């Protein structure tokens, strides 16, 4: 099954997504993989990654780093995958030299489709970056548009979609 989980920064969406992934893995007796997409730039980036590692510690996740080209990502076994997060993957594909550039939307969606075929259950964390009412420069607007498109497309495919508010899951779909 495909679950899409969204929410703002600091909304508790990661913790909720982990609980969804771990309970699916337990239920079906499957291995758990965490696909990390955030490149830890600088001290702040390292702290964020460290915080997420601590949250996952002891829950049985094997961490796989994938910054671009999700389509090419193989998995040791057919298990439960927690992919976090679309906002980073989209930014990497758009802005990194080895990224997909103008084909970002297609590359990310093809990656999600390929990953879905390679695993039993896919839990995707994405990010609400759309509601601050600030008018950004053209590049940032393009990023928002691309991530918004990706979010709509994966939510349309998803068996369930959830928004997390203050750590509380609100079901959008199913």
């Amino acid at each position: 099954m495909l679950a899409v989980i969204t929410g703002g920064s600091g909304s508790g969406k990661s913790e909720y997504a982990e609980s969804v992934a771990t309970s699916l893995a337990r239920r079906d007796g499957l291995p758990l993989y965490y696909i990390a997409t955030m490149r830890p730039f600088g001290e702040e980036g390292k702290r964020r990654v460290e915080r997420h590692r601590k949250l996952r510690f002891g829950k049985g996740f094997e961490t796989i780093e994938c910054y671009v080209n999700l389509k090419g990502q193989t998995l040791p076994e057919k298990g439960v995958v927690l992919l976090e997060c679309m906002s980073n993957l989209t930014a990497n594909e758009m802005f990194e030299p080895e990224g997909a550039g103008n084909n970002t939307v297609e590359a990310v969606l093809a990656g999600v489709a390929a990953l879905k075929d390679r695993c039993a259950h896919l839990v995707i964390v994405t990010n609400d970056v759309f509601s601050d009412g600030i008018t950004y420069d053209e590049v940032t607007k393009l990023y928002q548009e691309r991530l918004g498109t990706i979010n709509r497309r994966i939510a349309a495919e998803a068996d369930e979609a959830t928004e997390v508010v203050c750590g509380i899951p609100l079901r959008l779909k199913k």
Partner: protein
Amino acid sequence: MILITGGAFQGKKAYAMEHFHLTDDDFVKGTDCAEAELFQAKAVADFQEYVRRVLKKGGDASTLAEKLYTENPEILVITNELGSGVIPADPFDRQWREASGRAACDLAKYAAQVHRVVCGIGTGIKG
């Protein structure tokens, strides 16, 4: 504890006043209240601004929710949802956004009820 959240200018305070029979005087403001006032108040508005002031003074915001619940378990807390935007360019803004989101998650754990207000319409999302 009761938590009311939602974006800016959504009518959170009006909803809280009507729903929980409070008046303006029952509220202290996160923008200027002292810690002692917060611990005695019936209600606090703009709690995210209290978080900001704690961070500005170099304080630890990660224990705020627990402290508040311990000192004032009956308080009604209004806090803005402010994480649904592009990552702020300013490091302090990023720190504040993160800390106030985490504080809201912690408050929601302690709260018996959580309400989210959009366009003046509140929805109970816990309790």
